[in-house]
């Protein structure tokens, strides 16, 4: 989702508030500290029909972050996440792939994946998770399975899934079978796909 698509998906009243806030941030980047927490009250929290998977407050907050000048954006994103409530933290995580910050947002992903809040763990596994090392990424995928998160939220799942992830999933499947508890269908599907890939490589 590109910034102009997010802006176009917002209801008209929210667009007005966001445009005004963006102007303020362009003049005074520090204003984002006050505007960022207010975005949900100003723009609402409704899911956006034209931006599937995004809510109005998340999109508005992403646009505020996008308005920051390049030399402060990484530091401000870090501060807004650190001092944000759960919704603000999630909005920062969703916005990371839109920002020109290189690897600077990776510590935020690590923090989110350490939590037990499904909304934060899920938001950490979007496109920006490309910056996560393979071991961290695999642990996060397995954590999604434990937390009951749908694996469809994981960006480039099949592309990044590897033999090590297959071994980890197979181990979980075995434990679940021993305990008489089912594994989620999408996790079993991933395990089967990874096993198929492994067989094809052997052949």
């Amino acid at each position, binding site marked *: 989702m590109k910034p102009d698509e997010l802006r176009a998906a917002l209801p008209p009243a929210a667009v007005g508030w966001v445009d005004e806030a963006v102007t303020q941030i362009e003049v005074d980047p520090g204003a984002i*500290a*006050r505007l960022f*927490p*207010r975005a*949900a*009250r100003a723009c609402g929290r409704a899911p956006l029909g034209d931006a599937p998977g995004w809510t109005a407050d998340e999109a508005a907050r992403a646009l505020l972050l996008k308005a920051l000048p390049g030399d402060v954006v990484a530091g401000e994103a870090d501060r807004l996440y650190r*001092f944000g*409530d*759960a*919704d603000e*933290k999630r909005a920062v995580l969703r916005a990371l792939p839109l920002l020109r910050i290189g690897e600077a947002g990776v510590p935020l992903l690590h923090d989110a994946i350490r*939590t*037990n*809040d*499904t*909304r934060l763990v*899920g938001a950490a596994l979007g496109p920006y998770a490309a910056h996560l090392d393979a071991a961290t990424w695999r642990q996060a995928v397995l*954590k999604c399975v*434990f*937390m*009951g*998160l*749908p694996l469809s*939220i994981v960006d480039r799942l099949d592309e990044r899934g590897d033999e090590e992830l297959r071994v980890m999933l197979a181990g979980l499947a075995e434990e679940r079978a021993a305990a008489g508890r089912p594994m*989620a269908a999408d996790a079993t599907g991933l395990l089967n796909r990874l096993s198929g890939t492994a067989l094809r490589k052997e052949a």
Partner: protein
Amino acid sequence: MRIFDPHIHMTSRTTDDYERMAAAGVRALVEPAFWLGQPRTSVGSFTDYFDALVGWEPFRASQFGIRHHATIALNPKEANDPRCAGVLDVLPRYLEKDRVVAVGEIGYDSMTAEEETAFAAQLQLAIAHELPALVHTPHRDKARGTQRSIKVVAESGIEPGRVVIDHLNEVTVATVKDSGCWAGFSIYPDTKMSPPRMVEILKEFGTERVLVNSAADWGRSDPLLTRATVDLMLASGFTDDDVDLVFWRNPVEFYGQSGKLELDDDDAPEKLFEGNSILRGGS
């Protein structure tokens, strides 16, 4: 039946308590920032606590369809520790959060000069951030502590209708009623109030501008005593509408003054990804 517990410390309760509260009819609550039994010695342990009140606790509550809100403040007990004075500087950041609906708990514990300074300063923060205030009254020397609290509130210039004076009893209720502040009662039998005494007070002083809470925390307390009080009110001749006024519309009116209560689809669990770790145990 719908119950709004306007004062409960869920940080100290288990996830099973959220489940039992939902089953008993609790649909919304306010969790005030207070002390944790073990004194804190740095600003950092306060910010981690405040972060939980606006992050982890709303998430836990949402698993059971309970709307969680918070009040944020430096509590009177810890206001006496100079190592915690810096907490006052970080409060404005939290008072801007969506689910923070008041400044609290503020007030007196041992009625020291430090407590009074923090109390007055935080009433000014409530005015500046357009929030109501939740005032805790002390366990020791309660009657004089309550009178002195009302005086500090009056001197601050905050509108009395935006203040609740909490943990009242038979001795302190009348002065608070006369002050124009809201009257708060904690059904916490050992030290504060019991359901039968609460029902008697409601008979005598009426159901207007009264908040009844469990104040359940890490002490000998019970998050279901709101429901027990509801049942006793009904058994004592109060109507369903009286109960709804005391246990829903009153807290909604009081905390609604923040403009930040989120109750629209209060019976539906917050939209989550399918399943969650709490119902399944941690991962």
